[in-house]
């Protein structure tokens, strides 16, 4: 831990969760140093967040220490288009499948990873689905028909509106009757 604190500006998110920042160019060196000089030896997860308004991805390499009791986030910014990262498969075997997943879901290229082919999708030619600009609802409207089942062709929204207005009207009438002396029973 002391090594971390003197080398990087460590952000302590939680008593057992720390975060440091680095760049795509120095990612390998950072991870090598951290894994050799500190307790954080295992790569547990590679998470990616799409900050579309800032035109960048933020990848989070989550390291776990030998006792599996503390976690360290290594955050790497990456431009949304044209950026690429070095693959970590040579250092962490489990990184291969995680990078394969991210490549399919975000289109991020990991240089040196030879398994960047179909992972969960089969012949997907659209925008990588986890990118923010991919609108799943529009895709569904275009490809499937999920609103079938009402054979009377009524629009559910219109019907709901009508019922709401009816209820409002009934309420108003009930109040009027309540105001009239020895009035009719409240509502019906």
């Amino acid at each position: 831990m002391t090594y971390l604190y003197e080398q990087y500006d460590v952000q302590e998110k939680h008593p057992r969760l720390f975060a440091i920042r680095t760049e795509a160019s120095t990612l390998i060196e950072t991870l090598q140093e951290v894994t050799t000089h500190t307790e954080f030896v295992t790569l547990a997860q590679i998470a990616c967040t799409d900050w579309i308004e800032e035109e960048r991805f933020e990848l989070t390499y989550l390291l776990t220490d030998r006792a599996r009791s503390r976690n360290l986030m290594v955050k790497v910014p990456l431009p949304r288009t044209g950026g690429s990262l070095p693959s970590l498969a040579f250092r962490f075997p489990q990184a291969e499948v995680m990078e394969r997943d991210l490549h399919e879901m975000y289109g991020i290229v990991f240089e040196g990873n030879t398994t960047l082919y179909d992972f969960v999708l089969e012949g997907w030619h659209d925008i990588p689905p986890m990118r923010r600009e991919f609108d799943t609802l529009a895709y569904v409207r275009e490809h499937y028909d999920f609103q079938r089942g009402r054979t009377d062709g009524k629009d559910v929204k219109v019907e709901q509106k009508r019922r709401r207005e009816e209820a409002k009207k009934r309420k108003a009438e009930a109040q009027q009757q309540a105001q009239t002396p020895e009035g009719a029973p409240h509502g019906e």
Partner: protein
Amino acid sequence: MENRLVTIFHGPQHPGITGNMSVELDLLGETIHRARTHVGYLHRGFEKLIERRTVIQAFTIVCRICVPEPDPNEENFARAVEGLAGIEISERAQYIRVMVQEMSRLAAQLLWMGGQSGSIGLETVGQWSLYDRDLILDLFEQLTGGRVYHMYTYPGGVRRDLPEGFLRRLGELLDHLEKQLPRYDRTFFDNATLRKRAIGVGVIDPDEALANGYVGQALRGCGIRRDLRRDNPYLVYDRLEFDIPVFDGGDVYSRALVRRGEMRESIRILRQVIAQMPAEGAIMQKLPKHRKFTLPRDDIYVATESARGEFGYYMAGDGSEYIRRMQVKGPSLIHGFTLLESLLVGEELSNVALIMNSLGICPPEIER
């Protein structure tokens, strides 16, 4: 050499596969020459759907991520949201959550026992253990209204209070299970055929296990004592006393023995929970309105010890009421690819189902 290899797909439509996935095997005779895992048959794009839903809407679908044991997912989601929004939950709610976790762990272990015994053609044990699992699901139904998907562990506490006399019924169930466990020992864990089949099969190397980030029984089966409930305690696990069973064979049989011990430990924990749970106390914190429930721009990683190992969520908020990003890391992601593909090489075709069951690989959490 190459032309003597036969390539077969072990799954997805195959009785010996754990869930809807497939392992592509290059066989030389019946010996596996190369194995490659294929997933994606269950991909629903949860992480995309959650980006479109508010916190409360996302809470209803998050439990679908892992079908055999949905509660670690709810626990992770709730803890991640609480960590981001800075919510502290009451002690009673924490005890109830621990109870739910251990019940789901017991149910998952019993389900695993059914699969493992079925993988060596010993249906009898599976029939008994699934019956006992169903008794636990009945309790879940009384508690949450759902058999499999509970939607109970909620950001800020739990959704409902315990029904009348629930803890008494839970105690009776535990008595029943304690009567059953020796039966399982006699018929399954000490069964000659299981020993003959499982000892020395699928051996994991301890150093590799630590370096490659294997979790759960894969670690504890080769002599490494790691358990998030002890190493990175959440809820009230630091107030409960329980052992972490460890066996150092590294093979399928050691993993089975680890699970056997964990069932006993879960029962022990549940008994302590029944004894210690405060009778009074709020079960739910006051939460902002549905549309006002915003998460700050920050990210967090929370992990729960599921029945098969560490189950982690990465969650990032962006100041709106929507979750910007939630990434799931189940134990099966590493076990299903890095570990399984290396373990199967050189094994017999007969042992594929055995090894997959012992690792407890669950495809829906690989592909979400």
